[in-house]
C-alpha cells in the first residue's frame, strides 16, 4: 500500500466517522434498525492487508466512534471482532482461482452476488456482538437477534447504495 492509498483511506475514514456520528447516530428505523455504515472502512480494506494491522485499525476505528457515542468500548468490541473474522470469511467465500493481489472487496470489484454474501454475514456478526455487549443481561436474546437482523440489513443496504451512487470509477475510492 503506497502513501497515496494510505492518505485516501485516511480521508475516507474521517468522512465515514463524521457521517456516522453526525448523521447515522440519530437514525433508527422503527426503533430497531440502527445503521453502522462506518464499518465498511474495515470491510473494504485490500484483501492482502495483514491480520495484525487489520485488528489494530478496527480497534482504533471502534474506539473513535465510541467516544462520540459515549459507549465505552462497545463499538471497539464489535469492530475488533469484525477485523478478526474478516480474513476467515474472505477465505471461506473465495472465488475459484482466488483473489487478485491488492483487490478491495467492494461492490465494483467483486459484483453484487459475491458482495452480498460477503457483507450481510459480516454486518450481522458485527451487530450481534454490538447488541450483545450493549444489552448484556437486560433484555432477551430474541431482542438482540431482532435488532441485529434489521440493523445489518439496513447497514448493508446503505453500503450498497453509497457505492452504487458515488463510486462510478472502477478503481480507487477518492
Amino acid at each position, binding site marked *: 500500500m503506497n502513501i497515496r492509498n494510505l492518505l485516501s483511506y485516511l480521508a475516507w475514514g474521517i468522512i465515514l466517522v463524521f457521517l456516522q456520528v453526525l448523521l447515522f447516530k440519530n437514525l433508527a428505523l422503527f426503533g430497531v434498525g440502527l445503521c453502522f455504515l462506518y464499518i465498511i472502512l474495515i470491510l473494504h480494506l485490500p484483501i492482502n492487508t495483514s491480520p495484525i494491522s487489520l485488528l489494530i485499525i478496527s480497534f482504533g476505528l471502534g474506539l473513535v466512534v465510541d467516544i462520540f*457515542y459515549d459507549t465505552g468500548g462497545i463499538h471497539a468490541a464489535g469492530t475488533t471482532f469484525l477485523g478478526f473474522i474478516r480474513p476467515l470469511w474472505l477465505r471461506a467465500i473465495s472465488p475459484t482461482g482466488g483473489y487478485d493481489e491488492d483487490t478491495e472487496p467492494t461492490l465494483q470489484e467483486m459484483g453484487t452476488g459475491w458482495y452480498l454474501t460477503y457483507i450481510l454475514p459480516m454486518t450481522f456478526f458485527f451487530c450481534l456482538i454490538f447488541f450483545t455487549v450493549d444489552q448484556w443481561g437486560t433484555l432477551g436474546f430474541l431482542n438482540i437477534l431482532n435488532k441485529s437482523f434489521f440493523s445489518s440489513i439496513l447497514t448493508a443496504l446503505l453500503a450498497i447504495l453509497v457505492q452504487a451512487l458515488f463510486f462510478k470509477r472502477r478503481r480507487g475510492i477518492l
Partner: protein
Amino acid sequence: MLRILEFLYRLRALLLFVFLEIIAIWMVVRNNSPQGAAFFNSSMALTGSLLKTQADIVGFFNLAEENQDLASQNASLLQQITLLAPYDSISGDGLDSTFRNSYMVQSARVVGQTLRLSQNHLTINKGSNQGVKEGMGIFNQEGVVGRVKTVSNNYSVGISLLNTGLLVSSKIKSSDVFGSINWDGENPLEAKMLYIPRHVLANPGDTVVTSGFNAIFPEGILIGTISEVAPATDQNYLNITVKLSADFSKLNHVYLIENTELSELDSLYQKAEISDEY
C-alpha cells in the same frame, strides 16, 4: 522454547484479537459502573465542540417551537410568583430553615445524545468552568432527564434516564408511595416503576414525581404518568409501566440542579454507614 515462540507467533492474530477484545469489554464494564467513567468520552474538547456545532445547526430549525415552550414556561413561573408573593417576608428572611433553599439551578443545552442503546448518555455544553459537578440532576420543563456523570472543562456527559443503570427515587403523587424509576431498555417512551408493594392502589393516569429522597432532585419534579399496572410475576411488587413525560428525541434546553447540602448529607450517610448511590 523456540517451538513455543514459533507457535505463539503463528497465533499472533488470535492473541491480539483476544487482548483487544478484553480491553474493549473492560472499558465497557468500567463505563457502565456508577462510579467509573470512560477514559474517552464525548465531553472531550474536540468531540464536544464538534457535537455543539451540529446541535447549533440543528437547533436553528427548532427555534420557533423552543421559544413557544420557553414562553409558556415563563407564564407558569410568573403565575407561581404571584401565588408566592404574599409569603415573601417569611421565606426571604432566612431565619426559618424550613424555607431555606438548598438547590441551585442553572440552564444548559444538550448537544449530543444516544437513544437506541441500552446505556444511553447525553452530552451537555457546560462543564466544571461553569460550575457543573458530578452527580447533579438534569431535567427540563417536561420532566426528569438524567444525572451528570463526568465533567470536563467545558462539557459534561450525563447518564440519560434511558439507561438501564440509572435508578431515580420517585413516588406516586396521589398516594405518596415511594418507588424507583428504572428503564428496562425496551421502549424509549416508557420506564418501569419498581418496588411498589402489591397492596398499593395505583391507577393508570396517576402522576409520578421525584421523591426528594436521593438528594439529586428536589421533591416534586415530574417524571411521567402511570400507563399500565399489572400484577408482577414476582409476588411482592406490582409491575408498573410509566409513560415518561420528557420527550428524549427532542431534548434541547435542560436545567442542571445541584443540591448544595449534598456533601453534608453524604458525610451524614457515611457516619450512619448507609450506602447511597445518589
